[in-house]
């Protein structure tokens, strides 16, 4: 019970201190809004919205979660307030879940900005929400854990952003959001399958317009694997880099 009191308060503190701050709210709203608008104008019609929304959801989650988590954790580590958490009698796994929960929720909220915009423009009744919602949560979790992985690997806030982009931009272009994976050059195709977003985007394409490449079960398994692997690698790195 005591550990859950700690968990809940870390989550609430982070949400109030970081995620509900005006710049982050505006980032969380304006960024997905701008992406959606841009792609809508480019697509040239309402009929393309269903094929466009999965990509915008993925971009909104990916950029929102990785940016905020990597920056907030690096900021706390640099200001040494993170040491205060490490000194508390909470298992490291629970502590890091508490630190990442806020970012995961932020990512999920971000995802619903393009969905709400699309709801005004087209009929979403045929969307398979049973697949889309768990996929959104898992994309948010894997992106957050990627942000955690980045945060643990750097020591300065600006490095966190630079290092995030090292993963984010190749992922955006190779995960099937802009170009179908089957149309990528043969030497780039294997790389696509190394990114969690590939599997998340595939589920969302399937859920929104039925255009997916792999079975949902394979996508969910791969996405879950990435979540667990990134979380465990980050925990191991925290143990090695921060508990000297």
């Amino acid at each position, binding site marked *: 019970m005591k550990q859950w*009191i700690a968990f809940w*308060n870390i989550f609430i503190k982070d949400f109030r201190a970081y995620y509900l701050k005006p710049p982050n709210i505006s980032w969380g709203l304006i960024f997905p809004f701008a992406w959606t608008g841009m792609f809508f104008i480019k697509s040239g019609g309402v009929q393309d919205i269903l094929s466009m929304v999965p990509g915008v959801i993925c971009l909104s989650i990916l950029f929102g979660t990785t940016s905020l988590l990597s920056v907030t954790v690096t900021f706390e580590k640099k200001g040494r307030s993170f*040491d*205060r*958490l490490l000194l508390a*009698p909470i298992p490291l796994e629970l502590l890091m879940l508490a630190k990442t929960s806020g970012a995961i929720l932020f990512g999920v909220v971000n995802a619903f900005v393009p969905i709400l915009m699309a709801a005004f423009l087209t009929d979403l009744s045929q969307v398979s929400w049973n697949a889309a919602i768990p996929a959104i949560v898992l994309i948010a979790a894997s992106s957050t854990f990627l942000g955690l992985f980045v945060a643990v690997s750097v020591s300065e806030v600006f490095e966190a952003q630079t290092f995030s982009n090292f993963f984010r931009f190749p992922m955006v272009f190779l995960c099937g959001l802009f170009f179908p994976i089957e149309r990528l050059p043969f030497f780039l195709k294997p790389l696509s399958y190394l990114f969690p977003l590939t599997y998340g985007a595939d589920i969302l394409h399937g859920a929104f317009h039925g255009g997916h490449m792999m079975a949902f079960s394979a996508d969910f398994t791969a996405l879950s694997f990435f979540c667990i692997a990134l979380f465990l690698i980050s925990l191991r790195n925290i143990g090695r880099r921060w508990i000297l």
Partner: protein
Amino acid sequence: MIPASHPWLRGIRVNALSIQGLAKRFGEIQAVSGLSFEVSQGELFGFLGPNGAGKTTTINMLTGLARPDVGAIRIAGIDCTGNPKAAQHLTGVVPDESNLYPELTGFQNLSFCAALYGIRKKEREARARQLLDTFSLADAGDRKFAGYSKGMKRKLTIAAGIIHQPHILFLDEPTTGIDVASARQIRHLIADLNRSGTTIFLTTHYIEEAERLCGRIAFIVKGRIVRIDTVADLLQPIQDAHVMQIAVSTADPTLQDKLTAAFPHLTFHVPGPNLIRVESGAPVHAGPLVRFIEDQGVDVTEARRIRLSLEDVFVRITGIEAHAMKREKEKGGGRS
């Protein structure tokens, strides 16, 4: 909360801290080497040394922020060597830098720190208010930590370290870089905490602070403990020493030689260009000394008897000038 089976609750007296052969290396630097000591329950134990001596590294290993390369740590009888989380519910840590959350108010910071130890809302809010009162911060409780003065930040950081009522409190340089009044108030609070039964492990470079507060002190230099004893025993060798300090217009080395030749039963030191220090096992008479010095053509501006302190003991044992250590730290010297 200590488990019911814990020796402390069964009336068995175990050491608050027991450290055996602790060592830590960072690359080429041996930060700490072969540390072994014990701190009794309820003791106020001082850990003194210059920058880079290994004080903060030791605290980090004891509290779980660093892993020892070798050695064993027991906190309140609990073996924490491989599992630092095992006793974190019993310890409180006040780091050498104030590390609370700048965006939270003083009250929110304290309440959040209490929540990290699983204290329920009603109780943690009551404790936060009480501590804000105790530390004279009640009026600033609703202000953001970022806007606090250095002294206020230090006080709130100490309050955050004790909000869960730890049995053992690690205080790393608690009064460094703050104003005299705040430092004095913090020293009173530390003494009160210790009187109420909290075991305190205090690192400081203010030797007079350690002398005033601590029951026992360890001197650490280059990662090794060079002496560990009670303050009374550390001071014992200088209890019978008689020291006189003579301020002169100029004290060149030849004057020291002349004085040594003329007064062979006295020991002379020249700690500064205008100071001569005379030590003896018997009372030192100023008259003959002053006359002799003036006969050498050197003006004497003052001659007074001084009481030796723990600082002199520290200098004798470690060979490190205490003033230099203090200056180095206050210049913003790093962690040790």
